[in-house]
């Protein structure tokens, strides 16, 4: 048979073309050395001996949740606060030892230096003189006042709670600003403190307040700031490129000329880019299986860093009856009818559930560098972390069984499940969000609870639904249509008052119900006058007394087994061994000191 030459020619041509593409692709490029070719020593070549402004080239940060917006007051997730923190500065921030340090303020106002008023009703900040916005105009007290006005307007849809309790903010002169509170506030460092509430420029945002906030695309993606960087290019949900803010207050900083935040598929792809291929210098929030992560670290390209703030993974107990047969009254607490849970209202049952759990195994095997076992709901910072409950670290199945036996919960029909004296079997519906680590935790705990005669049904809900605010959804954590549920929470400020307020009863106003559109924070529906009274003392306490009260409140929660703390969670990140500077506390973004980051020399 004849070979049609045309086809052979065609075939040859395509093969050649393909080869050409492959060769072109494999040729080592002049500009960017790839991971495989990178020298083993830190890339210090060509750098001046001391880092100066913009001397250290490019810094690549990889975020597997891409930055959507650079206005923190309209953030759609934690990553957006991080993206904004390179551009915008607060008045004060927390350093790596969780101490307040001034940023745009001249000093930290205190009672001693007169910055905080005697009656604890106001705090007065002096702005550092000579601070310029990246557009060259000076920062004034008016900008600070405007920032508050912007967020306080309910139509803005502001996503931070730092201004709760602020009555007004007024400019006393060009560089002095006073924050007035509605009540005496012994810890006044919430408004304008930390990455959650930086100062935005009035001139840029004055037409973007209220409803207009939603349409200010340009302002929201390219805010003018006082921080070390400004936006060079912004691609929503993908990449942010930052350039040096020429007007930054320290002429020697920042050291990197360009910073790029890039997206990646997931946490393990981020870890790979830093620890295996070396394409990125820093990877954020790497909740990757511990064994896999440590394997990657062993390749020697980067280091894993854990920052413990105060986030605790816990199991919340439902004190009301979530029985679907109750219809509208399901998980509903009212002062007239507390609708008690058939057995979880008995402290012995809650205690037994806690005793049966081996927190060490969960922390070691499922969290690795991302967590350590804890017996406290308030686990940090160290000054307010209680040491009175550490006995829970030891699993005690035998003791739990004994406790339930003595309390009268016996398995009378021999099916392996205990019953209450009234004959209600100890069956528990245990819900959490869909997440590999959480499902593994659920499976472990299910096993342990089985050993004390409690049958557990597991349920997981998509995070977007579980943590969402849709009042129509039956699956949000606030509706709590389950017996127990698990998630992470913690104070975002070293002062725990706002966090401890979550368990206030307030006559039921703080308990999620249709009356408040399921918006209350006391998700456990645990109503204790004693707790409310002790919390009232915290509202006015200062100094050591304040820490003592915080610990006492934590102990009251934990010893009543209102929620069962499991793991003190850290934010895990990885940075390249060629990078020097990352140093965090867990109460700021990892980039809080990015102006000092530089290449290892």
């Amino acid at each position, binding site marked *: 048979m004849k070979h049609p030459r045309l086809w052979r020619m065609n075939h040859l041509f395509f093969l050649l073309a*393909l080869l050409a593409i492959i060769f072109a692709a494999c040729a080592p490029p002049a500009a960017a050395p790839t991971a495989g*070719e990178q020298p083993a020593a830190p890339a210090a070549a060509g750098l001046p001996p001391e880092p100066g402004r913009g001397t250290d080239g490019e810094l690549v940060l*990889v975020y597997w949740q891409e930055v959507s917006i650079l206005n923190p007051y309209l953030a*759609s997730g934690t990553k957006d606060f991080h993206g904004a923190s390179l551009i915008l500065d607060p008045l004060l921030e927390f350093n790596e030892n969780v101490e307040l340090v001034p940023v745009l303020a001249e000093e930290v106002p205190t009672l001693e230096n007169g910055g905080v008023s005697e009656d604890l009703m106001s705090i007065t900040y002096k702005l550092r003189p000579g601070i310029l916005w990246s557009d060259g105009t000076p920062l004034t007290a008016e900008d600070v006042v405007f920032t508050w006005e912007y967020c306080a307007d309910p139509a803005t849809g502001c996503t931070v709670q730092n201004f709760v309790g602020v009555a007004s903010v007024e400019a006393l002169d060009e560089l002095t600003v006073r924050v007035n509170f509605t009540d005496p506030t012994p810890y006044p460092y919430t408004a304008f403190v930390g990455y959650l509430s930086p100062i935005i420029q009035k001139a840029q945002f004055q037409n973007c307040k209220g409803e207009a*906030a939603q349409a200010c695309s340009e302002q929201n993606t390219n805010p003018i700031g006082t921080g070390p960087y400004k936006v060079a290019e912004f691609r929503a949900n993908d*990449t942010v490129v930052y350039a040096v803010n020429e007007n930054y207050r320290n002429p020697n900083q920042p050291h990197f000329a360009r910073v790029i935040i890039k997206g990646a598929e997931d946490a393990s792809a981020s870890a790979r*880019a830093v620890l295996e291929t070396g394409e990125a210098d820093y990877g954020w929030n790497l909740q990757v299986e511990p064994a896999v992560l440590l394997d990657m670290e062993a390749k020697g390209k980067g280091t894993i860093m854990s920052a413990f703030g105060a986030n605790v993974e816990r199991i919340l107990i439902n004190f009301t009856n979530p029985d679907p047969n109750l219809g509208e009254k399901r998980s509903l607490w009212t002062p007239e009818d507390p609708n008690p849970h058939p057995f979880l209202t008995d402290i012995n049952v809650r205690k037994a559930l806690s005793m049966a759990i081996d927190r060490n195994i969960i922390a070691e095997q499922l969290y690795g560098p991302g967590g350590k076992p804890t017996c406290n709901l308030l686990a940090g910072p160290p000054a307010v972390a209680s040491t009175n409950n550490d006995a829970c670290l030891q699993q005690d199945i035998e003791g739990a069984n004994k406790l339930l036996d003595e309390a009268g919960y016996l398995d009378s029909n021999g099916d392996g499940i205990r019953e209450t004296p009234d004959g209600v079997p100890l069956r528990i519906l245990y819900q959490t969000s869909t997440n590999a680590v959480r499902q593994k935790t659920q499976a472990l705990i299910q096993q342990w609870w089985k050993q004390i005669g409690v049958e557990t049904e597991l349920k997981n809900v998509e995070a977007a639904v579980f943590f*969402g605010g849709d009042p129509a959804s039956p699956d949000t954590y606030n509706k709590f249509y389950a017996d127990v549920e698990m998630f992470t929470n913690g104070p*975002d400020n070293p002062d725990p008052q706002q966090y401890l307020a979550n368990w206030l009863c307030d006559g039921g106003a703080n308990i999620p119900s249709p009356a408040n559109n399921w918006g209350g924070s006391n998700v456990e529906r645990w109503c204790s006058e004693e707790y409310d009274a002790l919390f009232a003392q915290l509202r006015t306490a200062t100094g050591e007394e304040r820490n003592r009260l915080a610990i006492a409140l934590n102990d009251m929660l934990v010893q009543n087994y209102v929620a069962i703390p499991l793991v003190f969670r850290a934010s895990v990140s990885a940075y390249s061994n060629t990078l020097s500077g990352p140093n965090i506390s867990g109460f700021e973004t990892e980039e809080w000191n990015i102006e000092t980051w530089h290449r290892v020399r």
Partner: protein
Amino acid sequence: MGQYILRRVLTAIPTLFFISFVIFALLALSPGDPTANLPPSLPMEIKLRVREALGMNQPMPVRYVRWLQQFMVNEPLNALEKATGIRIGDSENRLRITSWTARGKPVIDLIIERLPQTLWVVGLAYVIAVLIAVPLGVFSAYKQNSLFDQIASVIAVIGFSLPTFFTGVLVIQFFAVRLGWFPTLYNTTLRVTDWGTFIEQLRQMAMPVFVLAFFQIATISRFARSSVIENLRMDYVRTARAKGLTEKAVVTRHVVRNSLIPVVTLVALGIPGIFGGAIVTEQIFAVNGIGQLLILSIQSNDLPVVQTVLVIFSVLVIVFNLIADILYGILDPRIRYS
């Protein structure tokens, strides 16, 4: 023909309205909330306020009508304004469809930002796939059951039985992690200005293009092969050979021409898929294309983006169906629309 096209276009309009409504209704009914990713410490009251500001508490029909007006009237007017530079009406206050996660960012701008990457990566993969697959299929068919055909068949079977999320990870592990040839993160801000950046662009496109093209070659070459085999057995081929035409003329002028008619329609129907991006592949290689936009928006419950992207897909599918039908009529004289 003109009448046929007109009729098809007219029936497409109610179809589109129907599709857009179904998509909107499904999304509105599906659970999920854009406030779910906010820090855990944020109290529910504040989340409720954010929902209010995003306009989520309005009833579904109101939201649909508003979206429809924005999509059908406001956005085309804006596009027209941008293209011609002529101000039409009160353009400042014309509401645009904006994203919920990137608050205030018009959805159309997000799509335009991402279209080039998708067209480059997915489009190039498609072009390469077609260029390789069609000759491959034709040659396999012509040499049916030869060693070449056998090998091509095996590769094709592997190609469409391995999902891209598997080949993608495999390729990354081998070429990027082990060998270090290609980057794993696609640099979307790279601008090709000289030879160096061009090479870099090729390097970062190599893996996703390979993975996508491999998958598509398999499908298209199989299709072309069976079509050619079918035609080779036809009487007209025997007639052509009996007439004494050269083998080359028989194959190129008769067999290939006739057997490519269904292939052309297949290729045309695949084009909307290019604009749709490759959801899985784009996500694995961090290419910020339309597919990745869609998956991110679904994950973060950014309904305006999901809705708009899906409706644009529907429009493209309908348009390319029409084009495929018309092409069919032009290529195959036996088919006449009246």
